């Protein structure tokens, strides 16, 4: 009861403080630069220059505290030892580039990067194109979109059952092994199968992201002027040509945005690997690698260095993505 009161109290206080801040600062500005009197025009112009900063101020400050400060702190930490107090120069970086675990992570991340965004976008595009043409398309769409609503860890749990393996003489409860056994094969420990296990993990993310790609691309496909399609039909183009030469080029911007959005997600992929293999059997990725050094290795310096590598990879794609999205609108 007391807690509830406290919660409501602090909520009211917070909202009140916000109102007070926005209203009060606005009022102060009006008092300082009254929009009347001789230099009204000048005052209004100056006030209008200051006002956005006044209103954006709190958000900018809070965002800086949560986003910008950690960046600088990570940079600082990356030059320091495991508890962040001894300056070690470039030692962390030297260690990183020599470390086998890091190389494995980079390689796997690249693998994810090549496969997942293209596969998700590709399947999403196919799904969008096909579901628009069939009568039960909306049901199919909901089914394909459904995985988006599942958390990565939840999805991993589901797929753990699919990849599950039991001793050869016991009945297989894993779907994949059950099928393999049914056709007379040997049950496999899929997620421990070096190299290929990476792809088994990727399938999970593709399964989730195809729905996202489909929804965005389907909206884009519907935005294509019907008359350009009809003109192509009359010109004698077949459905495949119409799709490849008329529709896809017209939604190219959207495809690029979907692709890069998934790319960024893939660079940060973590939960699936943690839940499925925890980076064992050659499935390590950067984010999980960082997590390992932070919370298991308890090494601030090294984990900060890994974090910076991830950031360096994400930022350029992010900038390009934002540019492309703005061009689209």
């Amino acid at each position, binding site marked *: 009861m007391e807690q509830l009161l406290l919660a409501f109290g602090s909520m009211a206080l917070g909202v009140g403080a916000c109102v007070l801040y926005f209203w009060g600062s606005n009022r102060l500005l009006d008092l300082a630069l009254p929009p009347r009197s001789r230099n009204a025009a000048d005052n209004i112009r100056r006030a209008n220059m200051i006002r956005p900063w006044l209103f954006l101020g709190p958000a900018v400050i809070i965002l800086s505290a949560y986003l910008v400060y950690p960046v600088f702190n990570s940079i600082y930490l990356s030059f320091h030892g495991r508890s962040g107090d001894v300056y070690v120069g470039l030692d962390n970086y030297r260690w990183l580039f020599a470390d086998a675990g890091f190389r494995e992570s980079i390689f796997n991340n690249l693998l994810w990067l090549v496969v997942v965004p293209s596969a998700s976008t590709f399947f999403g595009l196919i799904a969008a194109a096909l579901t628009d043409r069939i009568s039960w398309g909306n049901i199919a769409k909901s089914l394909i979109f459904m995985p988006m609503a599942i958390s990565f860890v939840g999805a991993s749990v589901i797929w753990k059952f699919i990849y599950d393996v039991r001793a050869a003489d016991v009945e297989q409860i894993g779907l994949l092994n059950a099928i393999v056994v049914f056709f007379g094969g040997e049950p496999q420990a899929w997620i421990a199968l070096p190299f290929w296990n990476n792809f088994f993990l990727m399938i999970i993310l593709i399964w989730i992201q195809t729905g996202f790609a489909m929804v965005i691309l389907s909206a884009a496909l519907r935005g294509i*002027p019907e*008359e*350009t399609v*009809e*003109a*192509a*039909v*009359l*010109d*004698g*183009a*077949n459905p495949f*040509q119409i799709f490849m*030469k*008329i529709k896809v*080029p*017209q939604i*190219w911007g959207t495809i690029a945005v979907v692709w890069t959005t998934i790319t960024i997600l893939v660079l940060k992929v973590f939960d699936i690997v943690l839940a499925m293999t925890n980076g064992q059997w050659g499935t390590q990725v950067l984010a999980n690698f960082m997590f390992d050094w932070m919370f298991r290795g308890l090494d601030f310096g090294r984990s900060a260095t890994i974090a910076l590598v991830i950031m360096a990879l994400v930022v350029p794609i992010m900038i390009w993505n934002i540019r492309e999205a703005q061009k689209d609108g």
Partner: protein
Amino acid sequence: MTSRQSVAVAGEEIRLENVVKAYGDSRAVDDISVTLPAGAFTVLLGPSGCGKSTTLRMIAGLEEVTSGAITIGGKDITGLNAARRNISMVFQSYALFPHLSVAENITFGLKVRRVAKAEREDRLKTVADLLGLPLLLDRKPSQLSGGQQQRVALGRAIIAEKPVCLMDEPLSNLDAKLRHEMRVEIRALQQQLGFTMVYVTHDQVEAITMADQVVLLNGGKIEQVANPRALYEKPATAFAARFIGSPPMNIIPSTSLPLLGENAPDVLFGLRPEALELRSEGPVRGRVRTIEYLGADTLVACDVGGTDVLARLPSGRSVAAGDALSFGFAPDTLHIFDQTSGKRRDDLITQIGLQVQSS
């Protein structure tokens, strides 16, 4: 490889036989039968929603026919898909492919039909010269003005050298001056190349100036099929009479204007504003309600027995609201339509003509 000097196609005849297009219970096109002669410029004319676009799209194969048959060049193409009907089409929005250059837009159809590159280039050059496009070939559609986009759309239609070309209000997005120029140009192009043109518009001026034959539609039905002159001079129905000409023809019920004497049937009289001339003791009498000064002449709206009647008078004559005026007209400018069916009643003309002249 010989260079081609011109594009020329033999047009083909299009016939619609009892064509119906139904959307649920309502019929957008209601039992239309008409022949569009080979190599002629036929305009489908009518008010908004009368089924012009639907008819055109059925000919194109973009819309299915509910019942009836369509033949092109004597071949039944009712069930044939659009790509195989041997037609080209210009859309109201031009429907240019935004990601392709002007040249690629124009040759897209040839490319998907696997016409050899050398011939493609050759035909592109001919068409570009014909339409004044050579300097724009590398641009994207977004870098063109509306008029230039229109030309590209025309180019895309004529490069295919199809015997039939369909156009759905192709000029409606252009300004008045450009519209006039393009009107002349499209007409010239069609005559030069010789294909059968089916042209949709709701603008009667466009129809009158461009067409060899006008198909006037109303509510999904045909009102009249005629050449522009016949349409203007002998409208088959009261609707056709009012649709052609600006300002529209006056339609005056015989109750307001008893020209036929006491026990004649109820009819509608049609008189164009320019056919009315001031004449003392003329048969059409009314009081001036409003005056619209147009420069060379003046439009005067009079109340004739409860019906508004417009007259176009030379501006020299000054009239004021409230004046009582009487008009006469030459007997051959009078049109008579049946009260109920709206059909033309030429059989009554002679009878009246005599009366009018004697009065």
